[in-house]
């Protein structure tokens, strides 16, 4: 390699250090101009506005509004339903992340050695990722129907008494979590498959030569550590998706029964778009963004730690 390959990228990484020819600057801005404008208008400005709104008592359609400081947040902090909503979201996320990551990894590992049928399995398990969740939620609702549902009928064969899954306080959130896992694990599987295909076969050969006694030992020695970045990524992305659970709740339970399926985004939706308490909805949105940031920052910290540990 000559210095060309070293110096040319370095050249580009120092943006704006000295003026380019004006027309080149103009050409570049011609390319990014529309994107920059739209990012400003439909991303940055709304983000600022949502924070600003959360400090007001604005109600959609109202003529007057006033600045109320952190009153919306204080209100939320004293509202048991809001805490319920956070707890439910967290519970749902833990269940779905654990379920879809675990199942996704297990299936990906199983598919590794399953030969000619592997693409067929992969297609089947990926199908729910593609299908409209809200439409499938309605199918699930029918399958969970207390009288005519498939689930009760099948469970009845093994002696389980029929249940009204979605209307029962003890089973509604778990039922939604099962739908969540059903929908997401194929996505985790595909990411794990991509990660597995990136592990060089020679490492398994080496483990074999080094005397790793069992498939489990080779998994612990090679697969698990090399898959760690993918696992972290899957966990993070599943967490973020789980935090956004809305479709199934809105379509099937509306937060009920008795608030057991009240989740963050649904609470925000109800406040903002059913009761039109815009300020309060904005405050929930800010909490929601904060939760996202916590997840992402945790990931960044974990990645940093990995890098430093090397």
């Amino acid at each position, binding site marked *: *390699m*000559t*210095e*060309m*390959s*070293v*110096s*040319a990228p*370095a*050249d580009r990484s*120092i943006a704006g*250090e*000295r003026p*380019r*020819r004006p*027309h*080149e600057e103009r050409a570049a801005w011609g390319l990014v101009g529309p994107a920059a404008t739209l990012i400003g208008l439909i991303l940055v400005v709304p983000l600022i506005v949502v924070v600003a709104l959360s400090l007001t008592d604005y109600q959609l359609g109202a003529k007057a509004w006033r600045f109320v400081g952190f009153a919306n947040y204080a209100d939320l902090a004293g509202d048991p339903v809001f805490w319920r909503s956070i707890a439910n979201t967290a519970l749902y996320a833990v269940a779905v992340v654990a379920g879809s990551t675990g199942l996704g990894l297990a299936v990906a590992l199983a598919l590794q050695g399953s030969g000619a049928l592997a693409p067929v399995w992969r297609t089947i398990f990926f199908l729910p990722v593609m299908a409209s969740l809200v439409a499938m939620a309605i199918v699930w609702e029918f399958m969970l129907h207390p009288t005519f549902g498939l689930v009760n009928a099948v469970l009845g064969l093994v002696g389980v008494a029929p249940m009204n899954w979605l209307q029962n306080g003890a089973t509604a959130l778990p039922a939604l979590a099962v739908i969540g896992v059903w929908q997401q694990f194929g996505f985790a599987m595909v990411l794990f498959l991509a990660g597995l295909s990136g592990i060089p076969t020679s490492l398994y050969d080496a483990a074999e030569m080094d005397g790793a006694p069992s498939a489990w030992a080779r998994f612990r020695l090679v697969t698990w550590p090399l898959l760690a970045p993918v696992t972290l990524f899957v966990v993070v992305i599943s967490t973020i998706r789980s935090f956004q659970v809305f479709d199934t709740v809105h379509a099937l339970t509306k937060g009920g029964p008795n608030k057991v399926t009240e989740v963050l985004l649904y609470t925000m939706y109800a406040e903002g778009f059913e009761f039109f308490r815009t300020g309060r909805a904005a405050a929930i949105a800010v909490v929601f963004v904060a939760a996202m940031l916590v997840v992402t920052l945790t990931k960044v910290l974990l990645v940093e730690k990995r890098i430093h540990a090397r």
Partner: protein
Amino acid sequence: MARIEIDGIEKRFGRTPVLRGIDLDVAAGEFLSLVGPSGCGKSTLLRIVAGLTREDRGAIRLAGEDVDHLAARDRDLAMVFQNYALYPHLTVAENIAVPLVMRRLTTAQRLPLVGRHLSGSRAAHAAIAADVARVAETLGIAALANRRPGELSGGQRQRIALGRAMVRRPKAFLMDEPLSNLDAKLRVEMRSEIASLHRRLETTFVYVTHDQAEAMTMSDRIAVMMDGAVLQVGTPDAVYADPDDLRVAEFVGSPKINVITADAALAAALGVDATRAPDPDGLRLAFRTEAVRLVDPTGAALAGRVVHLENFGSDLMVHLAVAAAVPIVVRRDPHDPRPRIGETWGLSIRPDRLLVFDAAGRRLRSVVGRGA
């Protein structure tokens, strides 16, 4: 065919100076090589000439005109890149046609499907196809016209990259290490091909390489660059035989030039009038392997023990351990007896080929040899 004047070019990347005031004048039709080790700034200089990188200070003139304000595409130069930079989705013929399509057709005529049916479009496309075919013929790649770069070997891709540069008549060709991704045999073949291309096209070539042999074999003149400065510009012969700087002497020529550090006494014994040097005891003496003969050690100013013989078939390189840390390499004169390992031989250096440098590596011409 145009003269290229490079005037006081300076460039830094961040805080690192890459070019420290380069002046070069490339005559119209000349083949000039920029040669130097990795990181010397030669590629950056070429990119500045091309208009792909902007200089911090200085100016480039093409055919007498200042082109600093012009973007690369408006400078009418052609460039061949180290990794060929062929468009992967286009066929060979389409790749070669790109510069013509961009320059000869209007935006409307370039449109897919519709473009071909516009007025004048058919004739323009036909003319382009003819030009492409002519170039492909010249380079012996006509048979590949409908293939895509991914299916071709390195040598074939290099020819296409050349074809893309040749297809119009640019003011000059800029080549950035065009041969360094080829295997050794192909590289030697392509050297003579590029040299003959230059003769045929009668256009200015600026050729960047880290391989001094490439520069020596093809160029009218070479400019040796190090640490962002041009150390010497001259014909290959002049740079080889009469270097201004020890670094130039060491970089150019294979095998590498012999260098010994000499005090006044040794210098005097070798015919150097050290008294005229500013620091008579800190001289660096350099001589090419072919400027020495092996002689009887008795009475020789310099003698050494044979430690290694390097047989190239045509030549025999004799490595002798002298007081200096690095062995001295001597090309055995075919008429001389063949030395054996362990023998001690004296060294006789041709005074006119002995190059004297001061401790900082600057050439001292007044003390010896042709300059004396």
